[in-house]
């Protein structure tokens, strides 16, 4: 499996990535190349996914980050792990809370601006109303985890096949 991933990693930037990884060189492939992968190309959250799994937070991934990403997103990855990473992905401003602005950004990325601002506001209000348990008008990780545990489609949808 690691060999396959190495092949794919190398495909993205053949001039940067060496064939031989025994010395663990410190190579990072920039985000712009990673989001062109067929598995991520159509995903509206591809930028956030790559940023979350990269060490520097800017989206430049080393090979270890690359392997991490696909192992966390694979089918056999446990639910708790996926929940943690999903929370990080949806937390755009990285303040450990999914606030209304994060929700609005998520929704806009999902629908590509097809909803009117009024509808977006309504949907975000309803979502927070549904999931917010400690009534602080944003979703902490506990709120998010509780909501995801009851979301029936999460496990089947939140995985990438490679």
């Amino acid at each position, binding site marked *: 499996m690691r060999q396959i991933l190495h092949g794919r990693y190398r495909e993205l930037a053949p001039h940067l990535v060496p064939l031989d990884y025994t010395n663990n060189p410190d190579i990072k492939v920039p985000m712009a190349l990673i989001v062109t992968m067929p598995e991520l190309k159509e995903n509206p959250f591809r930028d956030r996914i790559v940023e979350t799994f990269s060490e520097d937070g800017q989206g430049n991934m080393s090979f270890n980050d690359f392997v991490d990403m696909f192992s966390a997103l694979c089918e056999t990855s446990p639910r708790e792990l996926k929940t943690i990473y999903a929370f990080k992905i949806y937390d755009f401003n990285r303040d450990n809370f999914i606030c209304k602005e994060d929700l609005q950004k998520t929704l806009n990325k999902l629908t590509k601006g097809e909803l009117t601002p009024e509808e977006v506001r309504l949907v975000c209000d*309803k979502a927070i109303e*549904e999931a917010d348990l400690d009534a602080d008008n944003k979703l902490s990780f506990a709120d998010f985890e509780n909501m995801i545990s*009851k979301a029936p489609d999460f496990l089947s949808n939140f995985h990438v096949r490679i």
Partner: protein
Amino acid sequence: MEDDSVFFIGDRGRITNNPLLDQLPSYQSLLYRRKSSSIKSKGSSKGRMSISGRLNTERRKSQMEQRAIKELPLPMAEKRIHKDQRTEERKYLISCRQWKAGARRYMKRLTDDAHTFLSSMKLWRSDIHQIEGMFGTGILSYFSFLRFLVALNLIIFLVMFCFVMLPMIIDPNPRRNVTYNEHQGNVCGTYPSITRKILINYHEHILDLLSGEGILERTYLLYGFYKSDEIRFPMFTYKLPLAYLLATLGYLLLSLLWIVKRSAEGFKRHLIKDEDRFQSFCNKIFAGWDFCITSESAAKQKRNSLLYELKTDLEDERIKQKMADRTRKDKCRIYFLRVILNMFVIGVLAVCFFCIYAATTFSQKAENRNKKVNFIVDLIHEYLPSIVITLANFITPLLFSVIINFEDYSPAFEIRFTLMRCVFMRLTSIAVLLFSLWSQLKQCGTDPCGNQKLCSCWETRVGQEMYKLTIFDFIIILSVTLFVEFPRKMLVHFCKCPLAKMWGLQEFSIPQNVLEIVYGQTICWIGTFYCPMLPAICTIKYFCIFYIKKLSLIKNCRPATRPFRASSSHFFFLGVLLIGLILACLPISISLAQLKPSQACGPFSNYNTSWEALPAAVEALPQNAKNFINLLGSETFAVSFFVVTCLAMFYVIALAGAHKKVINQLREKLVMEGQDKRFLIQKLCQAQNVPVVKSTPRLHSPSRRSPSYHTSFSSNYNDAVVLAHSPPRSSTHV
């Protein structure tokens, strides 16, 4: 929303955390990633845990030790370090504990490998993967349901084969010519002309194959072939009637258990879902996007469907509001309209059922006359009930979907109600067919010579009807795909007229397809008693249907505009299947317990009812076993068993109610705790800042050492702290 002074606005306008919040154990358990610079040195492991507070480190470490390394949300390098750490620690354990730990790890790895191996052995794994990638998880659930039915039918066939057919096949002394004797017990003057001509017509061959008559009556296919004597093997005698009866009960019970087990997985999730806080919006936003999608068209489709779902939900909300605003006059008008429309629906159903009844009686009478008019006409006569049922099942869903528009229900309820009506229609049509056969059977008591073919061996007739229904169902599915869907696709692609474009490509309607295969499965369950090879035929039928549907899906269909969610569908499929099973049990139990088996054929020809085989076998057992079984069958046992089951059920219901109450209380507590936390942090910040500014640098240092690149408080901490608000209401004094 109360004024949150616990969070400050930094100089870049970003909301940042209070440093104290970062030190909370709940935050620490999130285990955010560390900067790579802190991992460079592979020396001491402790230095890497660069968070303030030894206590937190220790607690986190113990927490992490419980979880498998694979499950930790850490970068790869840190996972490797963890692994090295753990191997080092293990060296210091005592040998037996080491062995235990090693054995545990080995077993875990073995079970994981076994699971992966088993899932890779599943039938059609790659096909289903391909469908999932192209069409999403809703349609995937239909195909995995189909796979489940193939497995179920195969197992049922194996049960019937091993216990009923195999003994007859390996019978050391077969006496075939004695068993199937139509003339035995025949009181009528004229004998039915079932004797075959020497030269069999080619047409009659095909007719026989399609209708289960003629030569097929003398094969293992139909009930009439099985004999009622015991089979004497060298070691023991094998009572075939008893085995036949028990195999029937066995396969029904097996199907029930398997379906219940399969639905139990989805049911657990359904139970914990709170009814009043249905999370449709959150589920769509956070779990709505299918990360497997790789093609642009599929992504566009998914986006459109999500948009559609969100808009529908918003519409639902608006309609709910409108319904709450309804006046009394409106309500009266709507209820009146609903009553009228429901009566219309019942009228339509009654007409359909009457047509099925008439067709069945006509078909039986036509068969009985035994006049071979014409190949095609004969075929139509044979298949008349199936044709009428299929027509009815085709027209009524269209009618229902038109009617429901006038009844003014909420959209979610509309779909469910239409589905319920269709399910009712499909499954009751089988019941009506059986009822019409039964009414014909009753006439045998008074006038056995009127319908000799039916009365001499009625189980074979019923078996033939079920066989015909199955074959016809398969032919229809094949023909619809070939002659309706493919031409439609050709038309839409090559014809430029606007009508064709408006009609569009076929949509793969999951509910209708599921009802089709549940209908087929119900027929199989009912028919297996009369036609023991029917499960094998159904297995082959579903096997072929998989490939037909897959081909049709890929070539002809576009994804549904109203997608069927994978989660709710799991429940829906198994629920409808369970209804079908219960419906199938009714005719079988009536025929086992009440109807007199025909004297001329079959394993039960010596008994008054089929069920009698069991008590007769019990009589032959030794005294102790007889007493035990009599006790099990006695009323005292049944009543006490029933009482115990009721008590268990009440206990479980009470437990569930208590849990729900506790959950609500905990939910309220959570809200209070959140407010408490904020209040306490405010107070703490107040207390920290009361002394002079000089002391603040000392407070900087612990927080500087706990850096996650996610929080930028370290750069914003120099800003003034905003405080001095009145504390929120808290529950600390409750």
